[in-house]
């Protein structure tokens, strides 16, 4: 099989297939959908990474633990404040991810960026209910898609592929949102809370390990934060503009010749 076809199946077709089947043919109970979507992403993740090291060794090896922990927190504390445990889980994961870099080269800038990511995460987890009114799956798939392109252009096709899988899983729900003209969403607060930490962790990995420039990373962090903060049905447009801006900056500053 062509390596490029393999990349497409791993990152797009498999997660869309599993997530789509779950949405249209699977159980209607949200808890099962969240678990199914997490499983769809984990299947793609396992195939893309060739199964992560246990215990984790590299940055991407922590992602399945983050997803499982986020799901567990949302499942256990369904009607209680979830932002604090989720923030702690995100902080712990990002610290573990960035630790090898800080170990070899202590850097206040990297530590500062880590803190900003955690603060942004905390804000997003607190406002997750608000996100459901602004087509969250569409917004998240735009963000994940933008970051996937930026990561692939910036240096890591692996991180780009993991994000493509995230964009694909949420993209299925985005299609359902678009079909209802952005009036309804089958993507619950629980789904938002499970997948947002994953997006933020992947943004951190892209920034620290895949040489994603600061300006692009800042736009891709601002994209979900502003997209959720603004109470407007079409706030996905803000995410689209910011994500496109992040990719555009990379294209403007970099070598545009095809490499992969």
């Amino acid at each position, binding site marked *: 099989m062509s390596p490029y076809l393999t990349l497409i199946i791993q990152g797009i077709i498999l997660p869309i297939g599993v997530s789509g089947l779950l949405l249209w043919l699977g159980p209607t109970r949200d808890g099962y959908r969240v678990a199914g979507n997490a499983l769809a992403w984990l299947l793609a993740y396992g195939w893309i990474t060739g199964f992560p090291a246990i215990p984790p060794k590299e940055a991407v090896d922590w992602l399945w633990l983050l997803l499982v922990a986020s799901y567990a927190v949302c499942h256990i504390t369904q009607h209680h404040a979830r932002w604090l445990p989720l923030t702690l889980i995100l902080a712990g994961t990002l610290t573990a991810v960035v630790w090898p870099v800080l170990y070899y080269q202590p850097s206040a800038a990297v530590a500062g960026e880590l803190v900003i990511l955690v603060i942004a995460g905390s804000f997003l987890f607190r406002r997750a209910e608000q996100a459901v009114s602004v087509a969250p799956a569409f917004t998240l798939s735009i963000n994940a898609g933008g970051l996937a392109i930026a990561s692939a252009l910036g240096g890591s096709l*692996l991180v780009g592929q993991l994000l493509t899988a995230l964009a694909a899983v949420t993209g299925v729900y985005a299609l359902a949102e678009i079909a209802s003209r952005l009036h309804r969403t089958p993507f619950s607060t629980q789904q938002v809370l499970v997948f947002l930490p994953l997006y933020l962790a992947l943004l951190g990995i892209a920034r620290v390990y895949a040489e994603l420039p600061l300006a692009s990373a800042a736009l891709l962090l601002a994209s979900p934060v502003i997209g959720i903060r603004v109470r407007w049905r079409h706030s996905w447009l803000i995410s689209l503009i910011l994500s496109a801006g992040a990719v555009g900056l990379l294209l403007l500053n970099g070598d545009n010749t095809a490499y992969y």
Partner: protein
Amino acid sequence: MKFQFAKSILNSLALGVLLGLAQTAFAEVAAPGNYRIDPAHTTVLFTVNHLGTSELTGRFNVVEGNFVIGPNQAPGVDVSIKTASVDTNHDKRDAHLRSPDFLNSKQYPVMRFVSDKVSYDKQGQPVSLHGKLSLHGETKPVSLALSSVGAGKDPWGGYRAGFNATTTLKRSDFGMNFMPGGIGNEITVTLNIEAIKE
């Protein structure tokens, strides 16, 4: 005009004699002792298959290390290579090779080969190195075929020896499994080493 021509011939002759002398000097067996790798005259090359259609060669630009040679010496080779110094003459590809997809240079900034066993031929020349390579968080036994290029005094009063070392690695053995269909698993590594006796 004639004077210029004669001068040019004399210069060529002098250069030929010097080169001949240098070649004679550097044809000898490397003297036993401790050596430090000269990074300016050492090259670390690797070759890997791309899409099953071609072979791509790249290099690592930052290398350092030292070794001990001589049949009666306690063997010891310690070579470190900065993974971020990978250079394939294409910035985007180099960034990709440094990323978590392959070398993960931020987490594993150095690859290191340490050998404590050297095999010698009848003339006392080292012919193979056996040791452990630490790369991408994995440490595996690796053997390198070694050939001596030359040894002798340099124009600055030092003593130099040169070797070529080659081996073939499987990147999957070192946990680099990404894009198995696009980029070959086997990597041929060649080290052209010049070292200064200490």
